[in-house]
């Protein structure tokens, strides 16, 4: 019996959930030392397939082979023992623990019952340096950015010496620079003999990093192609079943009156005393998309928290449609402001509520949804939710009644976008709105954002992705270390120039109004 070239084989995998067949007879073969991309629309069943490999779900049909031998991955511990590691789409970190504690969690070395963190720390710092993950081992998870949380997850897996590494949309939250870094890491790891499964919706990344790519659509296996022998267009055609246009058509903006006016705004971070946003002034007019660009962790999150009322501001003034809302309640602000939050699980959704309940999260109190006596009008809510689900193509197992927790990441995001856009706001604050969406959905959302703009909405877009920034915005503001260091016209600038400002190599002072 010759040695098989495959590290992992998943043969004929079928997995049914109530109302949906998430995986329908899927076959996936991962060669040793290769980077294998997995591509598919939102809800196609990628995460489910990977969860099966990682032992979180048991397949209804089909078998898994590791190094040619059939194995049963009964739970994540078994996966661990088999050398299979996974970075999940949504992080699995303990919020109140430090980075170091999270990494060693479950595999702590102890001596006489006491934690031995010295060696662990050494190993972690080595790994962190080697792969340029820039981890602060003593920071608490609840205090660090989404980007750093992601890097903690990656380290967690590296720390366990796994040889099959599953990455479920690892780049969705990283900055372009960080993605470059990660791609280098992935290539290194593969060169060292690790076999990597990599889920991404970004075709250019797949083209750059992967050796082969398997495509699934609506739970069914479509095919596997060699990256050298394919094009992004072919991949997106395989994935969606039709051609997808990757750039956005838009007319020049017809700007109206000033909707949002921010003057000298300062916001504290989580730790008191340190200002994360310093003396920021800008405005957004009706009918334009203003984009805040910058590397993750430069105060964008806090700026949005300040604008939307999630944290109190420490100085300055915010006006919305001429009204001072600096200290207004969240509810007051949301009359005219919609907010697509950065962290959909933390803020955007009540995961244990049904989809229909989540669809009215921002307007359940309106007379159309609640009777004078305080009873919810469930029928109206159902109809409203169903309309949004159809209009915005939100896919789930059981329609309006699906528990949001069981929905795929991309569809959760689509639900939030549907809810926020449909409220017809004057100002739309969208933070990373297309995070985790497939190319077809991104095209859709971009069109909708532009349509919102053309309807006369002021759109404030916070994005880490330069391509999105360049594609969508009418004006670009670059944020660096809590300040706005430059303002640009997307037609008159390029990635390089923006990159210089984003990394702090250059800065201008920007006047409050142009």
């Amino acid at each position: 019996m010759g040695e098989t070239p495959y590290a992992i084989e998943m043969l004929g995998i079928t997995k049914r959930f109530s109302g949906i067949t998430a995986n329908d007879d899927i076959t996936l073969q991962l060669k040793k030392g290769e980077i294998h991309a997995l591509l598919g629309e939102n809800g196609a069943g990628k995460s489910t397939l990977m969860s099966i490999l990682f032992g979180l779900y048991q397949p209804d049909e089909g078998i898994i082979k590791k190094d040619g031998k059939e194995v049963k991955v009964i739970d994540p511990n078994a996966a661990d023992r088999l050398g299979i590691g996974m970075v999940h789409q949504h992080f699995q970190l303990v919020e109140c623990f430090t980075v170091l504690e999270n990494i060693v969690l479950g595999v702590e070395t102890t001596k006489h019952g006491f934690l031995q963190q010295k060696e662990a720390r050494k190993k972690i710092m080595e790994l962190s340096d080697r792969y340029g993950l820039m981890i602060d081992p003593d920071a608490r998870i609840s205090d660090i950015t989404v980007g750093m949380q992601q890097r903690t997850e990656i380290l967690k897996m590296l720390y366990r010496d796994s040889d099959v590494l599953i990455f479920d949309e690892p780049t969705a939250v990283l900055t372009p620079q960080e993605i470059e870094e990660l791609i280098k890491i992935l290539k290194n790891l593969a060169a060292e003999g690790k076999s990597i499964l990599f889920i991404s919706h970004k075709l250019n990344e797949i083209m750059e990093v992967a050796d082969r790519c398997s495509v699934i659509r609506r739970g069914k296996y479509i095919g596997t192609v060699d990256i050298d022998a394919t094009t992004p267009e072919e991949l997106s055609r395989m994935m969606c079943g039709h051609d997808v246009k990757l750039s956005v058509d838009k007319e020049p903006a017809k700007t109206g009156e000033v909707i949002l006016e921010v003057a000298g705004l300062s916001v504290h971070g989580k730790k008191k005393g340190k200002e994360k946003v310093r003396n920021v002034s800008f405005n957004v007019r009706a009918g334009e998309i203003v984009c805040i660009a910058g590397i993750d962790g430069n105060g964008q999150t806090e700026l949005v928290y300040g604008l939307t009322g999630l944290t109190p501001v420490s100085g300055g003034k915010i006006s919305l449609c001429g009204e001072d809302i600096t200290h207004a309640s969240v509810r007051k602000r949301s009359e005219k402001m919609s907010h697509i939050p950065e962290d959909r699980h933390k803020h955007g959704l009540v995961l244990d509520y049904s989809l229909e309940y989540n669809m009215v999260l921002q307007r359940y109190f309106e007379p159309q949804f609640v009777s004078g006596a305080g009873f919810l009008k469930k029928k109206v809510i159902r109809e409203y939710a169903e309309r949004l689900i159809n209009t915005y193509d939100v896919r789930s197992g059981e329609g309006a009644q699906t528990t949001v927790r069981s929905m795929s990441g991309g569809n959760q995001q689509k639900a939030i976008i549907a809810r926020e856009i449909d409220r017809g706001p004057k100002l739309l604050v969208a933070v990373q709105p297309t995070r985790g969406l497939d190319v077809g959905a991104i095209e859709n959302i971009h069109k909708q954002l532009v349509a919102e703009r053309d309807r006369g909405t002021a759109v404030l877009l916070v994005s880490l992705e330069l391509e999105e920034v360049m594609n969508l915005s009418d004006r670009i503001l670059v944020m660096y270390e809590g300040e706005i260091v430059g303002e640009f016209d997307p037609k008159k600038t390029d990635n390089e120039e923006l990159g210089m400002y984003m990394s702090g190599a250059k800065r201008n002072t920007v006047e409050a109004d142009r």
Partner: protein
Amino acid sequence: MKDNKSMLKNEGFQSVFAALICIIAGLLVGYIVLAIINPAEATEAMLDIIRNFANYPRTSAKMKYLGNTLVKVAPLLMCALSVNFCYKTGLFNIGAAGQYVVGAAASLYGALAWHMPWYVCILMAMAAGIIWGALVGLLKAYGNVNEVISGIMLNWIALYLTNMLLGTVSEAATPYTTQIKSVNTDALIPDLGLRSLFINRYVTLAIPFSVIIAVAVWVVLTKTKFGYELCATGFNRNAAKYSGMNEKRNVIMSLMIGGALAAVGASFLYLSGYEQWQTTQSAVPAMGFNGIAATFLGGLNPIGTIFASYFIQHITSGGAYLDTNIYPSQIADLITAIIIYLCGFVLFFKHLMNTKRASKGGNN
């Protein structure tokens, strides 16, 4: 096959199933303890407990003692509802025990010192419970004091304040409060014929009231805007904040209502005349704590809680039928405590079932 699967996934079915497992486990462990002490009599002893009022041959006696059980189901159910309500807002209202105590204080004081009619006494209990719950809520919302800590401390404060207050209306020769029927019969909750039906003068409207309140709590939690907000706050405080709900107010409101429920529960018991308050007692009455077990056994559902409360009280009362010649009388308490304790494990069993289902997923 398909049906079986969806049934196992059904939330309600799971709750009932987990509750049954807990009950069986509790009875089994209780049985084992009895068997260790005296193997020969264990089976009969266990049956005595389970039979409770059915130990009596005559129907009239059965009704009477069923009545005695029901009298105590009402306050237990109210405490359970209190815990349930707060739990939906993400709060563990261990302070229900203390809210129950202040409810007893206010209703008895109203009845004995101020000679108020029963409905005023109930309202006084409600007011006291609201204040006691609000204290926990305010500390939580504005001081970020954990509701379990402040709840436990307030339980003790409530107990000693109540002992002091009710000491002024106790019988001359005993530490017990004066019997309501001897000074103010208006303070006894009316019965509308229930007394003669059960041949038991403690059976009052309090019992149907508590069931109606349970249904009302269920309606509020599942059908109203207020319930929507409370549950959203309980599931995800950050999302509640994001959507502009006033989470601080929700926390306080929830504890105030929880306090009212537990306190009214106490008035349901004491205004039936079934018990007098012992002003020298040095332990917080178990009612509030048993309410926690009843809530969990009831699957955190107000309707389920009705049945769970009945079951727990049934076993507690049944403990009295243990033959004290064979078993020391503390054993009855021990056995019922074990059973109640295991009832609290419902969530654990449910969780176990879910993980089992996830890993076996679809094989059945």
